[in-house]
Structure formats: structure tokens, C-alpha cells
């Protein structure tokens, strides 16, 4: 059975790209969220095996969303999607419960490696 993924990013562009990478690798995209609030709601609803989380989103940022998701499910597997220059934020996200991170621009191989690490 393929792993289920929830993709959280405010840019359709990024959601599409991450979705394509994961789909081609056999993952099942079960949901997308464009704000932190949506991410938390959809996590509770869908209980995906993996969450990819953008850091900068309107409404509720990715870090707070990770915190909320981890509070709800301590075993949640969240992969942060970051850009250059966000070291401090990524560290904070990991302290909040994120398992790993990838850096934009995304290279499919990097994304898939990180996903494999997160899923163990």
C-alpha cells in the first residue's frame, strides 16, 4: 500500500511540483493545504503518513502548524520545505516536531531521500 501524503504550501506552483515528485515515486497525495490552519485541520481529518510543510504561509505559519500537528499526533511525520536563509526557522520547526527538511529549489532525488528518512 502506498504512503499517503498531505502537501502544505501557499503556492500552487510548489504544491504541484512536490505533488508530481511524490506521485511519480508512488505516493498517494490525499490532500493539499494552503495555510497553516488548513494544514492542521486536514491532518486531523486525513491522518496522512507524511506531511510536507512550507514555513512561510499566510494565516498560520508552518512552524505553528507543526506544533499543532505534533500536539495532536506525537508520531506525525512532517518534512519541512524551506528556502535558503531560513536556518533559524528550520531549527525551530524541528524543535517543534518536524523530522527533516528539504531546501528549495527542489531536486526530486533530494526530496525522495528526505522522505525516505522521515518514513524510516
Amino acid at each position, binding site marked *: 500500500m502506498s504512503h499517503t501524503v498531505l502537501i502544505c504550501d*501557499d*503556492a*500552487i*506552483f*510548489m504544491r*504541484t*511540483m512536490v505533488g*508530481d*515528485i511524490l506521485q511519480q515515486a508512488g505516493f498517494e497525495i490525499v490532500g493539499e493545504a*494552503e495555510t*497553516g490552519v488548513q494544514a492542521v485541520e486536514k491532518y486531523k481529518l486525513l491522518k496522512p503518513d507524511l506531511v510536507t510543510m512550507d*514555513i*512561510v*504561509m*499566510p*494565516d*498560520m*505559519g*508552518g*512552524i*505553528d502548524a507543526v506544533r499543532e500537528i505534533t500536539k495532536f499526533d506525537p508520531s506525525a511525520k512532517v518534512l519541512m520545505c*524551506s*528556502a*535558503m*536563509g*531560513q*536556518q*533559524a*526557522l*528550520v*531549527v*525551530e520547526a*524541528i*524543535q517543534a516536531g518536524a523530522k*527533516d*527538511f*528539504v*531546501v*528549495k*529549489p*527542489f531536486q*526530486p532525488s*533530494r526530496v525522495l*531521500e*528526505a522522505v525516505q*528518512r522521515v518514513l*524510516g
Partner: protein
Amino acid sequence: MDSAQYAELFLTESREHVSAINHSLLELERGEGGAEPVGAIFRSVHTIKGMSATMGYGPVASLSHELETLLDRVRQGRRTIDPPLMDLLFRSADVLEGAIEAAVGGDATRVDVEPLVAALKADSARNGASGPAAGGARAGGVPAPSAPDVGAWTAAAPAGAGLLVRVRLATDTALKGVRAFLVVQAARALGEVTSCSPAVEQLQADEFDHDLALRLQTTRTAEEVEAALRTAGDVVEVRTGEDPVVTPSLSDTIADMGDTGEFSALSGAPARAPAGDGTSASGAVRQQRSVRIDLRRLDNLMNLIGELVITRGRLSQISVALNDPALAETVAQATRLVADLQDEIMTSRMVPVWQVFDRFPRLVRDAARSVGKSVDLVIEGKEVELDRSMLDEVGDPIVHLLRNAVDHGIETPDVRRAAGKPEQGRLTLSALRDRSAVAIRVSDDGRGIDRDRVLRRAIADGLVESTRTELTDEELLRLISRAGFSTAETITDLSGRGVGIDAVYNRVRALGGSVDIRTAPGKGTTVTLRLPLTLAIVRSLLARIGDETYAVPMTHVSETVELHPKILRTLKGREMLMLRDEVLPVMRLRQLMGYDGAPKRGLEQVVIVEMAERRAGLVVDDLIGQQEIVVKQFDGVREGLALFGGATILGDGAPALIIDVSSLL
């Protein structure tokens, strides 16, 4: 991965972000919204940076990167907001937009971002950019230290109890500081990390080569530790156990001890993201989920619906003739479905006016600044929807009206002050939807149009009788929309670019709309454009000649009268119509169409049609009434059809030709 498929998506989203950036910049300049505009701009720039880097659009990525760095400083209050900064940011938004379009257009070199990138860097440098908070600048601007020789460990062995563990990261590790932190996290899962080198703060700040060392008190075997730490990712080498030869100098040892930090310091180390960084609500970036569809497709759909309506008409007739209840019910259902489908297609062509209006605040700001005026543009009714092609067409006329208002309507600050008005002029652009039309209104609180001057000029040109002492709004509009009509001052050459209100007027009328103007001396001018919701649906007056039906778009119909013989005159061999104190040329549709004989019934009807300042009486046999019709364009102008702008299918399935009033006059 082939990125080309994402270019379209990138362009759509980037345009929305550029629009949002401009929107927030104007807010920022007005000092509204506190910290939120900077946060919103930062988020948009950040998103563009990520997307453009992914697409490989170097100039866009480097520009947005520098811009983000500067914005981060502004956000942290380390760069004050002043006019030079605003100019730099506005310029950045323009260049960024150009660079985005150029990159997607496959000609990234068309827009040179380097001068601006240099200006942004210079601004950051002038205002003391160095410091750990300018994370963006460091990550992108300073090249990573060159990779050490594989095999050489650069991190000093930390003092303390536990197993010495050395970890080397790949030289191309992204955000190696964070990766190092993940390594430490993995180690902590195995036992207690008593010390680390370099210290955690330095690791996080990327201030290390590619290796780190730590002391771990654990019950696990060395092999287990190595395996566990490799799962942190980007780890190319793990070594456990004391270094074979450790001969650090005394000074190194002291420095190392200073660098050695406790992990408890970690929790307080990273600064919490400021409120603007994605944690607060924002409406500035509009979420628009969309699929781009070629308008021609929608036009085709509209045409097909027309065909379907014809077929439905025939089907209804057959059904009535057969008198079969089951068939009648099915036909009735199909009729409803066709109507619903028609509605859906119409709706799919509708877009909110903000898609065009959003660029106006910036335009008005720039126009006002260029003439030394201060103008506050208020936009109302952004969500009102209009047919996409209509919206595209009406953009230019609105630009004219806005420029007119800024150039000629609104006075300079000193004149306004002298007149007892606020120094800042107020310009309102509003969109309002009513039943079957959208009213777009441009209203200023400026000096208004000088009626007396227009009247004197009109009398001098022989356009109105010399005995007149005042003009109605309708007359005023008709006069100033005459091409070339102008008074000594720039009353009609309002746009300042040689295009007067006549251009606006004709454009809007060509779209099936109407223009209305209200002006009061010293109080301001309001121009209202009334537009049909869509170009494809036109409210029309249906008229009959013999057994044929013709449609006259209502936007060109001013009134209808019965053709009493007493209102007809013949002047110089031409039939003229006396309408109150107006003399209008008469056109008989029956003759234009080449019908023989006279209408069956007694009194014919006259449709008073108008186009710009021209009016005429169109004589028809009879009037049927008003109806919304779907316009089906001809493929090309055919012989003898020049008088018609298209055809339509009426409710009963019968065709009707649509009269093109502009070619008639």
C-alpha cells in the same frame, strides 16, 4: 524534471504576488496596517524567490533574494521606512515584474536586474547589513567556505565525558547548520550529548566547515551510533573513538573550550519569527485557484450553446406536434439543462474586476507624483464580475478617466487649500452590479468641468443655438465627446495624451455600453460607464419587418415613437423626423432590406437610434419587445450583411439579424 510545464503556473502565481506586493507597498507608503504590509511583501517576495529558483530563473531569483534581505531588515526595524526606500521598493516591484515576464518569455536577458541588485545591496551595506539576523544575505551572498580535504577533520575535539563522535556532512549539503542540528538531535536520541564542537550557535549559523564533533554518553555500540547518525541525512562519514593524534596548541584548546556549548542553550537560540512571518492572517495575497482556458474555447462553447438552442427549438416544435407526454417531459428537462449550461458558460467567462483594477492604485500614485499632486484612490466593488473580454476592453478607457481626473480634475495642493478643500484629492473608482449591467464609476472631488466655457465654445462652433444660456449634462457629454472639440483650456484633451473623452465614449459604446457624466463646479466630476455583463449577451429591442425579426441593441436605442404622418417632413428631398425641437434623418428598414410594398397595418414605429452624437429615426413595421439575446458573430462580413453585427436565435428557434447601429449611422 522538465520545468517547462510549470512555467504557466509560475507566471500566474507570480503575477498575483507582484500585484499583492504593489498593493502592500501603497499601504506601506500611506503608513497603514502597521507591520502587516512589510510582512505580506516579504512573504510574496519569498514565494517568488522559491518558485523562480526552482524554475532556474536566475535573475528573478537573485533579485528577489536581495529584495527579501532588505525587507527582512525593514521587518526587524533595522532599516527605517523613508522615501528613498519606498522608491527603491517600487522600482524593485517593477523590475521584478519585468524580469518574471522576461524569464517566462524565454528571454531572461531582456530585463537587466543587475543595477537594481547592486542598488539593493548598496542600500543594505549603507545601513550596516552585517550581522547574524540578515540570514538571507549570508546564505546567498557569501560563498560557502571551500570544502576541506576529505579525511581532514577541522572541528576540534570537545572536552568532556563520553564517546567522541565525528560527523562529516556532504560538501553540497543545503542548510548545513540545520543538518548539523539534526545530527545532534539524532545523537541525543541515543544518550546524553555532553558537549559539541563547534558550539551549537555557530553550527546553526553555518559557521563551520563540513564536520562537527561531539561527546556522547551512551550504552549503544559504536556501530549503532554510526548507523543512527547516518540517518540524519547528508552524512558522508561518521567516526567514533578518540582521535589517533591529538596535538592542539594551547590557544586552540582555550578557543575550543570557549566554543563548547551546552545544548540547553539551544532552545533560546533561534529567534522566534516576527509576527509578519506567516503567523498572522493576511488578505494581501489572494488565493486564486484557476485553470487557464483560451478565451476562444469559451467563445466556441458559447457558439455551441447557440446551436443547441436552435435544436432545442426544433425539438420543442416536433414534440408539440407529436403530443407525446413522455417526449414533452424530456424536452422540458432538456430545455432546463440547456438554460443551466448557458448560465454556467456565461459565468465561466466572468472574472472579478480587481484583476484589472489592482494595477490602478500604482498608476494613480505615479501619475499624481509626476504632476506634483496628492491623490488618494479608493476602489470599491473589487469583487464585482465582468466578462473577461469586456474587462480587457474597458481597461484602457478607465485608465483614460483616471488620468483625466489626476491631470485636470484634481487641483494642485495649494489651489485646493485656497478653495478650502483637503490638500489630498480623493478619487474613487467603483464597480457596481445591477440586474444586467455593471456600472463603473470614476469620481473625483476636483474642480469640475467648466460648463460656461464649453457652452461658449459650442456656440462659437455653431453646435448649439447662440441663445442658449446653459447646458444639460447630456448635452455637455455629447459636446465634449465630439472628436476634436476643445476649449481654450484642456477641457476635453483631458488625458493629457491627446486622447479625449471621445475615445472613451466611442470605446464604451462599441462594447454595447453607455457613458454618463455629472459635473459640478468646484465639487468634482463623476463619469459612469454602464456595461453589459458580457459581450455575448445583449439586451435588444426586437422589431418586425413583414415576417422577419430584427434586433436592435438597447444601448443604441434612446426611445421609440409612433410614426404619425404629422411628424414627418421632407427637407431637400430627404425625409426628416421632427422630434420635439430636434430634426432627425429617417431610415426605413423596409427599404434598406429591399422589401416590396407597404406594411400591412396602419401606423409604423420609429426607433430613435444613437451612436456617439449621431441620432436617427429607424422606421420598422412593428415592435415586439425587449429580450436578452445571444450574439452569434458572423465568420466574416458577407455581401449585403454589412448592416448587421451578427445574428441570434430567438426563443422559438427562429433566427434574427442584429442591426449594427454604428454602420447604419
